[in-house]
């Protein structure tokens, strides 16, 4: 279970970094509004789907992003630190001109990249440990029952 959580976090961070990269292209070349950027590149991440859904129901983007991160990001496997970062990313997303947005997206690509690196380290170090712990716990229980 814990081992799967570590893998889910890595996958979600990778997905979000892909989203940031796609967002950079959209902002620079098509200048579509933030809701459309998310709509086009929301694949895989539940909180992005949730945000689009909330926006389509008339909620403004800022509130929709906050609610979606608080409500759904944990199901994507994001940790608390990732969620804080997502919230601060949402505050600045769309709030400046193209150059400002490029810097914003660049900055958060770096920050999420660091998180991804640590998530990968965690997964590599801890997933085997959790797996072995699970196996030993299972074996111990089986022996006790016999």
């Amino acid at each position, binding site marked *: 279970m814990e081992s799967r959580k570590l893998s889910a976090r890595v996958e979600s961070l990778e997905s979000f970094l892909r989203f940031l990269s796609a967002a950079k292209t959209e902002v620079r070349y098509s*200048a579509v*509004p*933030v809701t459309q950027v998310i709509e086009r590149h929301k694949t895989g991440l539940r909180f992005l789907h949730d945000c689009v859904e909330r926006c389509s129901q008339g909620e*403004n983007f*800022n509130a929709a992003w906050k609610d979606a991160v608080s409500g759904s990001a944990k199901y994507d496997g994001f940790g608390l630190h990732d969620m804080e970062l997502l919230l601060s990313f949402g505050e600045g997303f*769309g*709030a400046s*001109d193209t150059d400002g947005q490029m810097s914003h997206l660049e900055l958060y690509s770096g920050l999420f990249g660091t998180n991804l690196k640590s998530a990968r380290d965690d997964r590599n170090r801890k997933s085997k440990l959790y797996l072995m712990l699970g196996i030993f716990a299972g074996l111990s229980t089986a022996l006790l029952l016999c």
Partner: protein
Amino acid sequence: MNQEKDERFDSAAKCICDRIEKALDCLPGDVKRHAQEIRLRVNRPVCICCSEGTYFLSPEGRIHCRPVPGLLTAEPKDMEESFRNLCSYSIYSHENEIRNGYITLSGGHRAGICGTAVLQSESIGSVRNVSSINLRIAREITGAADRLLERLGNQLSEGLLLAGAPSSGKTTILRDLARQLACGVRGNLKKVAVIDERGEIAGTYMGIPQNDVGCCCDVLDGYPKAAGILIAVRTLSPEVILCDEIGSEEETRAVEQGLNTGVIFIASIHAGSVRDLMRRKQARRLLQAGAFGNVALLDAAHGPGKIAGIYKAGDLLAETDGGAVADSGRNARRGYGIA
């Protein structure tokens, strides 16, 4: 609470911050139907401008003719929220518009904005601390151009320049002209190209015109007018080109170039009177070039879309400086009109 609906007003009001939108939502239906502008000024009462005058809004959605105490005022955070909402929380996607002092909204509404200019090498790079928002409600009035066409005898083959003060109904008439020409309401169908730099004529949102501009109409949404005219002439083979608020040197040159291809131009220009119009160098130049055979002056004082007079370009030029209008060759093919 009275919550009568007016689709156009409500869609425009939706772009403002929640607190003010709630009060606007409670306005009587009659006010909503006649409202032309919603005006927000920082720390000042919210105003609704109708053709009859300006009204002030109370937090409960009641209107007052005078600025009495207890009115709903736009606080700095309301201005900030409204500005971000007007930009769909995507300031970068309205960068050029903001530089030019406006934001085009879905439904063809337009918000004029002003605040503190951020200068970048002597030109306006951006605007910060937005202090005023003028939300102009786009109204689609089917048949708005009927009176004008009747007075012109359904003849537009010589081109038409619509002159009028702000809020005199120039865009509403242009939109209806596009629809009537592109649908063949009063004669043959025409291939119409609308150069909709500010998105006010067709109100295009996500690539789809929100207003009815006819079935044979190509909309060049967001194109600068000068570039749009040349692109339309080169690629869309239009018979009629429509554009709003013409007047710069570059636009004048583009019209002159288009004129040589035989396209009919219908455009609007800001001018409160014939005198104002003839004082404008570019307008005079266009009339002299024969771009517009007729000039229709709109009368803002008697409500939007009212015609104060229709003038022949040649007569206006002769009156002002004795200049003669160039023969664009259009009089030889009067049958090209819509009748």
